[in-house]
């Protein structure tokens, strides 16, 4: 257990002292306060970031050449100094830390705190405005109350965390509440955070205490404990605390609709929406250019934040109405390269397609590879070429070979941050991408609908309890289509599975086929082994059971689903 020396210091010195302690703590990897670390990083590594940086003012992209040349002119001097590599990053006006943040992540309630601070700042700004309007006395009351509220909230949260550290923090902050020199503390906090809110009048800040300064001290020491376990601590609270821990998809969409209606009245959100619209408008102006480059055997790749689906659709209906096109939803989980190629073969060439994708590719290469200009073109519209099902290198290689053909044109989009890694040099040189940044902040409604979201019921596969939710709905769905006998068989299986689970010490045994048959016969569910097998095949097809060969050569059955899901299923099923 580390000992903490106790020193009495004047309030104004607290900040420097804390900084000193924090800076001193160099054990293994250097541990500094969030800001310091970020700053240090910015200084040392700025060059590294600038490699990937590019001009931030995307807005001007569509502007006329004149503006651009002005911009370039200004970089010219820069260029004469910098080396070859840095050519990539002229116009850098942002430092890396602004884009890629490197806050030390080890602190406990960092996120909550950050949110509180941020919210507080926003409120403070508002309040500043209010002061000008409202009369002094009522305003003071107002802030008083609000401060108390926010303090309570912070305290409440710290209580919940329930570790020693938060108690000490609390006592510290309650100390602060009674201390007379709050002004200094506030000032110190403000400077620590480098906020822009410095202009906030001190009077209103009198009542505001954010546990930043001293918490920083305790956090620094708290880090010792953490480093022993090498584990990042998070609170143990779960979503069960919510009154509605898992939302159904319908509820979600309803709530979002409500939100949309509501936000139409809020001015600040409207401003953002109109800005988004303006962005989309500017992108729409490049349709002609995209088409031009597509015709010149370049392929268009769209990147940037926001769903590009609408943008591409508008492009298709605007420019490609007369063309043959194949729309591919790359985010669709069950997509395969074979289905894409089969579609092309079926619909356009109308040849009986072969089994092997490579053979199909060969046919397509012959068909679209002709030099004649009379050959009709095919436009491949691929939403999310980086989609899960298209990510493997074989698929991308086949796509790149398609892209190379003179009569196949591709317009695609990427969203994943590591999307560019799916192409190696050879593939890239076949694709001939022209990249367009079309950041538009549109929501990824359809793209994420296939994805198992974390907080929804009935979400996608393979995500722990959330996957289980999907499994449950799948289970219910399958069960509905079964005969009552088959349902009975499945119930026997599930009950067996759950029984096993109850005494966790014993080694879990799978149900042998003969046992099951015996049980089923007893309950008059099946009359022969054959019917039982027929039922089981159905379950197998839906991946509801697993069969494996035991050591004695017999077949053993198990249900590969979560026990909670099974329990839920049984409960639901009882009600039917």
């Amino acid at each position, binding site marked *: 257990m580390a000992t903490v020396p106790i020193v009495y210091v004047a309030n104004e010195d607290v900040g420097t002292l804390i900084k000193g302690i924090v800076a001193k703590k160099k054990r293994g990897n250097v541990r500094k306060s969030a800001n310091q670390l970020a700053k240090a990083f910015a200084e040392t590594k700025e060059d590294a970031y600038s490699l990937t940086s590019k001009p931030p003012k995307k807005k001007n992209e569509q502007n006329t050449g004149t503006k651009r040349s002005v911009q370039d002119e200004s970089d010219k001097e820069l260029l004469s100094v910098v080396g070859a590599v840095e050519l990539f990053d002229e116009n850098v006006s942002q430092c890396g830390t602004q884009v890629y943040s490197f806050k030390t992540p080890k602190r406990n309630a960092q996120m909550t705190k950050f949110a509180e601070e941020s919210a507080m700042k926003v409120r403070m700004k508002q309040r500043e405005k209010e002061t000008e309007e409202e009369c002094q006395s009522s305003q003071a009351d107002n802030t008083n109350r609000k401060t108390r509220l926010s303090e309570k909230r912070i305290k409440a949260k710290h209580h919940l965390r329930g570790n020693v550290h938060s108690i000490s923090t609390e006592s510290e902050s309650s100390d602060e509440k009674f201390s007379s020199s709050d002004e200094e503390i506030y000032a110190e906090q403000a400077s620590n955070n480098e906020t822009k809110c410095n202009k906030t009048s001190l009077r209103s800040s009198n009542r505001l205490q954010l546990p930043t300064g001293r918490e920083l001290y305790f956090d620094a020491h708290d880090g010792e404990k953490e480093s022993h376990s090498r584990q990042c601590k998070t609170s143990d609270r779960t979503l069960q605390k919510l009154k509605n821990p898992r939302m159904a998809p319908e509820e979600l969409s309803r709530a979002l609709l409500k939100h949309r209606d509501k936000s139409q009245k809020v001015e600040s959100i409207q401003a*953002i929406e109109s800005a988004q619209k303006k962005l989309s408008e500017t992108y729409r102006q490049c349709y002609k250019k995209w088409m031009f480059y597509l015709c010149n055997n370049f392929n268009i790749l769209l990147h940037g934040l926001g769903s590009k689906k609408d943008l591409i659709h508008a492009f298709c209906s605007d420019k490609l109405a007369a063309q*043959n096109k194949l729309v591919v939803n790359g985010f669709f989980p069950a997509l395969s390269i074979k289905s894409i190629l089969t579609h092309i073969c079926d619909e356009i060439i109308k040849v009986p397609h072969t089994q092997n994708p490579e053979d199909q590719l060969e046919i397509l290469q012959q068909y679209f590879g002709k030099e004649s200009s009379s050959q009709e073109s095919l436009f491949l519209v691929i939403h999310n070429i980086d989609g899960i099902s298209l990510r493997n290198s074989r698929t991308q290689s086949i796509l790149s070979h398609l892209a190379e053909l003179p009569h196949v044109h591709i317009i695609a989009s990427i969203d994943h941050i590591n999307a560019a890694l799916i192409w190696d040099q050879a593939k890239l040189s076949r694709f001939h991408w022209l990249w367009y940044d079309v950041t538009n902040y549109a929501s990824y409604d359809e793209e994420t609908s296939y994805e198992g*979201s974390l907080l929804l019921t009935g979400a996608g596969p393979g995500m722990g309890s959330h996957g289980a939710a999907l499994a449950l709905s799948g289970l219910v769905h399958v069960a509905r289509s079964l005969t009552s006998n088959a349902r009975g068989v499945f119930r026997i299986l599930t009950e067996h599975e759950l029984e096993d689970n109850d005494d966790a010490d014993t080694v879990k045994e799978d149900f042998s086929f003969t046992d099951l048959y015996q049980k089923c016969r007893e309950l008059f569910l099946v009359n022969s082994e054959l019917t039982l097998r027929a039922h089981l095949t159905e379950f197998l097809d839906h991946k509801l059971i697993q069969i494996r060969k035991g050591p004695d050569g017999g077949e053993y059955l198990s249900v590969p689903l979560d026990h909670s899901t099974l329990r839920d299923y049984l409960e639901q099923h009882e009600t039917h």
Partner: protein
Amino acid sequence: MEDIAASSISKGCFFIPGNAKSSTIQASDHFDDCGVKPQLRWKMAQKIWNEIEDSISNLHIEIQEKLFNDLVQYIKLAQEKQYEKNDLSRGKRTEIPTAALITGVNMTDHVTLFSQLYTKIKEDVSSYVAILEAKNCSNMKSLMRALGDQLLNVCEDNEKDGTTNNDLLVYMKKKSTPLTISMLEKWYFKSIATKFLQTSPSKKRKLINEIPNPPIIVICQQLEAFSPKVLQEFILMCSFHAQRLPIVFVFGIATSWSDVSQRLLPHSAIVHLSVERFHAPSASSHLALIIDRILLTSQHPFKLSGKCFQLILDVFLCHDFSIANFLHTLKFCVMEHFYEQSASIACCASLQESIDMICNLKKNELKEFKKIESMKRHLASLKADKQKCIKDGTKFKALVAKLLEDLHQFHNFYFSALRSLHAFTATLPHYPMGKQIRELYCSCFRTELTKHDGFQQAFTILKVSSRDQLIERLESCLKPLQLSELSSDSSQDELHFSTACSRIKYLINSLKSIGENDEVEMNENTEDREEQLETVKYAYQLQERLRAKAEKKRVKKMTKYEKLREEALTFLRKFYEYHLRKVKSFPLYEVFYFDSSATIRRHIVAAPRLSIQTALSDPYQYLQVASLETAASGVIPSNAPDICVAYKLHNESGNIINLYDWLMAFQTVVTSQREDKENEHEESDDVDDITQARFIKAVSELQFLGFIKPTKKKTDHVQRLTWSHT
């Protein structure tokens, strides 16, 4: 309509047939509508690009021709030699002739190189050619299959009516048949026998004389990618049959032969090869040739600005080493130039064409020229009386024509002068003007030569050069000038090429002649010493005179050679400074130069990751709404897009994130604005449906973008995937 059609929960592909009868597309239909004569510009763009492409492909052929001829010659000779040897010594042929083609690391362009080689060999030597690729040859069986398939297909045309070996062929063609080399051998002899039978007797004799047995050429593309075991087995197997089967190997090697012989192939395999090495031109030297012969000439009117040029060079040198990609980027630049720059209408190869083009322009089309940045600057610098003429259409036309003429004049000599200067300074120590001519081009584009450090340095070094060196350098710098001297018309200007050439020639001659009587000159100089100091009234006059005299003496003291050197250097300096003026100082240079490196960077070497991160962490960059301005400084505006709020909060956490806490924090931020609502009083941690829904959406979007993923480490936690420390 499409939107509905193209989304389904059971399908990922949707075919939408075109509704027009003829669905061929024309790029010209999609060229920019606005600006000056778009259709004409598009035609010019095509013409210029085709010209550049043609000259580059000619260069390609020229470079590769020698290599291919050498290779083909080797293969032919190897075959004949073997047979001679066999006849003489009756020894068994066990060595396989092998051509090691060392290609360098430029992977992407090699496929074309090998396919060209393939066709060349097929035409010139033998139709029995196969290209093996590593991906098809993971084991011996698949290698034989790949080899067999190609050989059998190749010779199918020859044996359309050949029924003799039909059974064997059919059997061998089955995919499942494991091919052996003895089967191939049997088939090979049958196949040449049928060929022999089919040819007429007169031809027969000829055939016997020429090639006894056409060789089987096996090309292994990128040898390093093959598995050593398979390769070794294959070589050994071929060597057993080498006495009967005339196999020749061509190995494409990216590294070096010593690397292959030490690492890839064991000694037991190498002894069966008789290797001859061939070097393909390296990618960078190839590019240097392209730049030298095609880009840095006045032959094509389209030119790249120094910065763009350097950028695509950097992409080439630091990124992919691919000539094909380089050309693609170049094509993009040409297209972009003609698409965006309406003044590019005047970008013609000859002056007359440009002027004709200007004359045909209407008044509003001419206005486009006034919008050009360099033109604006030029117009602003004109005197007031001349400014009036801008308003007048015809006078303005004349002005533009005059400026274009200046540019053309300038270009006529620019590249020769550049080459000359490069030749003049290329041998200096430390290369003050750069090793390659492209470096010189880039620096001349952006700075005035007089301000160029390297230029000053170079002339300082030259000032102390010896006579032989100087003569050598002068001769080398004369060569490029003489080439263009012939084409240019004569003029009286001192700095004009023809006069300059004769001047340099004269200087060289006199430099050569002074060698012997250098000493005599020295003596002559001493005569002037007899000047007397006149009596002067004031001391300062004396001082001045003495100083002047000392100066004079210093000059006088120079040998004749030194004087000549001084003369030559001052002349050349003046000459280069005149001809290599900064391109940017010319008005209307934008007509010919593509100068938007930002466009290239944005569309060719984009940074998709940065754009997403920027959009998330600093939405103000994209959405110019005043309230978002604070986002960069650590405050989260409550009206920021939800995904930005969630992202900013997630930045504060460690490598795993508690969803509940995250949601609470999210709520705090989102509701911070609505403080005057009553629900503040309740102060409950209950989250309303809307906030929760927004949070869910934001989180699943972040997951879609790859920032987080669900984890089972702890219930209701997600794992952070970017920038977390552990």
